[in-house]
């Protein structure tokens, strides 16, 4: 069953008792009374499968804190199976906090995978990995590519399966920050986004709804083919230049969440991935040009 089939009222009830949401290989049981979580899930997760029982990877809760802060400048807190790993946030950051919380659940626990801090997209069976230095425009580029027919695997977490070395999709919403929200709205006026959360530690954030096709195919792993280091530069003409594989390997190793932890396995997975990939630096200023270059790359 898909989430939208519940209808808004039933979804609200389910969230009080525990909604089991499937995103890629993970099932999360979400409990929340926060209206922001309800509307966020309703708006952005409609196409995702939901379940009524079985094994859940993460038991999470996003709810108002108790005590004074329940009413005065209300705060919410993210809970994982009874524990509260983070400091409370303002109540209107509830949905963003669920998104970040779920990312943290994965990056902190899913060591079955080698986890890189990178976006992953796919087209024609070829996956493109975009490692992101903060401010490089990774999320904006990811959103633009996804809105132009690329399949979304993830905007933040590249998961490499230890069993087959393939990239594992999550297909969750793309987290956009500050100026990129309006840039994407201008790029694709029809794009569906969640409500804005202001003054978070990342500034103003909003999430972009993943395409139905990406969600429908979230069990389909992808073969790594390209590693592209994007860099947005004002007025730059789009330019794809070769990047050394050795450097790409080191970059992945140092920006992975669990490269050290996996030891030899981490080395082998990383090496196999880089061996399969052509690596590039990519400088751009206009999204439409970037989309054209990427489409050529995977054609």
């Amino acid at each position: 069953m898909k989430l939208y089939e519940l209808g808004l009222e039933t979804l609200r009830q389910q969230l009080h008792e525990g909604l089991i949401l499937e995103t890629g290989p993970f099932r999360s049981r979400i409990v929340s009374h926060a209206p922001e979580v309800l509307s966020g899930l309703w708006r952005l997760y409609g196409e995702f499968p939901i379940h009524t029982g079985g094994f859940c990877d993460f038991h999470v809760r996003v709810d108002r804190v108790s005590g004074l802060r329940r009413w005065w400048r209300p705060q919410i807190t993210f809970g994982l199976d009874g524990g509260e790993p983070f400091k409370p946030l303002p109540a209107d950051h509830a949905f963003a906090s669920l998104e970040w919380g779920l990312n943290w659940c994965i990056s902190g626990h899913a060591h079955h995978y080698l986890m890189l801090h990178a976006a992953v997209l796919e087209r024609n069976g070829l996956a493109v990995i975009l490692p992101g230095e903060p401010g490089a425009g990774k999320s904006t580029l990811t959103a633009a590519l996804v809105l132009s027919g690329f399949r979304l695997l993830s905007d933040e977490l590249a998961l490499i399966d230890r069993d087959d070395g393939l990239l594992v999709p999550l297909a969750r919403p793309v987290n956009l920050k500050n100026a990129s929200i309006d840039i994407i709205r201008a790029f694709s006026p029809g794009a569906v986004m969640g409500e804005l959360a202001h003054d978070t530690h990342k500034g103003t954030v909003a999430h972009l709804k993943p395409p139905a096709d990406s969600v429908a195919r979230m069990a389909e792993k992808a073969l790594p083919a390209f590693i592209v280091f994007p860099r947005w530069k004002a007025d730059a003409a789009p330019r794809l230049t070769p990047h050394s594989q050795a450097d790409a390997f080191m970059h992945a190793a140092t920006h992975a969440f669990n490269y050290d932890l996996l030891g030899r396995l981490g080395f082998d997975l990383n090496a196999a991935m880089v061996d399969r990939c052509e690596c590039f630096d990519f400088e751009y200023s206009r999204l439409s040009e970037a989309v054209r270059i990427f489409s050529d790359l995977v054609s």
Partner: protein
Amino acid sequence: MRLSDSILLRALREPAGMKGYDPETWDLLVRQAHGAGLLGRLGALVRAHGLDNALPKSVLRHLHAMLSIADRQRTAVHWEVHHLADAMEGIQGRVLLLKGAAYAAANLPPAEGRTFSDIDILVPKRLLPEVELRLTVAGWVTTHRDSYDQRYYRKWMHELPPMFHLERETSLDVHHGILPETARIRTRPDLIIEAALPLPGYGNIYIPCQADQILHSATHLFHEGEWWHGLRDLSDLDCLLRSYGCLPDFWATLLARARALNLLGPLGYALRLTRTLLDTPIPVEMLKLTRSSFRRSFMDALFRHGMGAAHHSLATPLTRPSEFLLYIRSHWLKMPLHLLLPHLLYKATRKEEIA
């Protein structure tokens, strides 16, 4: 529900039964095991019983993840002990690894899948100044810079203030006893050091002999003030007892050691609780060590309820009160009141330092 009926304890008692668990059962079991710090052990049991293919894929991924963490820690311990051996080369005495570090470095029965946070060592008290100097030269520094804390550790405790390594950021607890200087029970760390076994390939690094591994683990557990990891430590004891229990003369040696070290009390608790909760095979005469009494039953119940703190589904209405009593008890055992009260008063009123 009684702790012994919980799915976590059932799985630990009968690992082979895990192949029949449905996804709902796994959902609870993985969470309980994670809370108790036993997910890695569960993974090790699954591996040892060849159950990989009988488990849901998603469960297996969690177990693999935890085993990866445990393997990584094991590699790290070997590396750390290697440095420790270098730092202690030529010192006139033995340096013992305790608990988690000893299990990992010597590949003892509880090692598989076990995670831990720091390395504990035991050295003769007379060597303490030299050990501390050598460690400092090799890059370990003390954590508590406050003079009260330094005095507290050095005068009353059985260990130096925790140290950590400046480059590797690993932490190290240097003990000269297994109980505080001020503790109610007096034991003989010198005998533990004397009977220790060398760790091949690591200079004068040693581990406690088999009986002492059990006595130390039991003493540590039953003097503990925080009980959420009680089940993990109890399961360590179960692993040790199961694998050493069939060695010739083991039980007689264990009993003699407990008498010599004055640790019959903790051993009694350990044997009864592992027997009741984990079905550890223990000879009947060993269980008769301590006479049954109201006090004994009360303490057993306190430990059982305290261990429920590992996960909210294991907790009973008595878990919180038990945890509180065990916390008070741990302090009571550590120090006589004329030392304890001023210490707690100082701790409660001291302003937080600005780091």
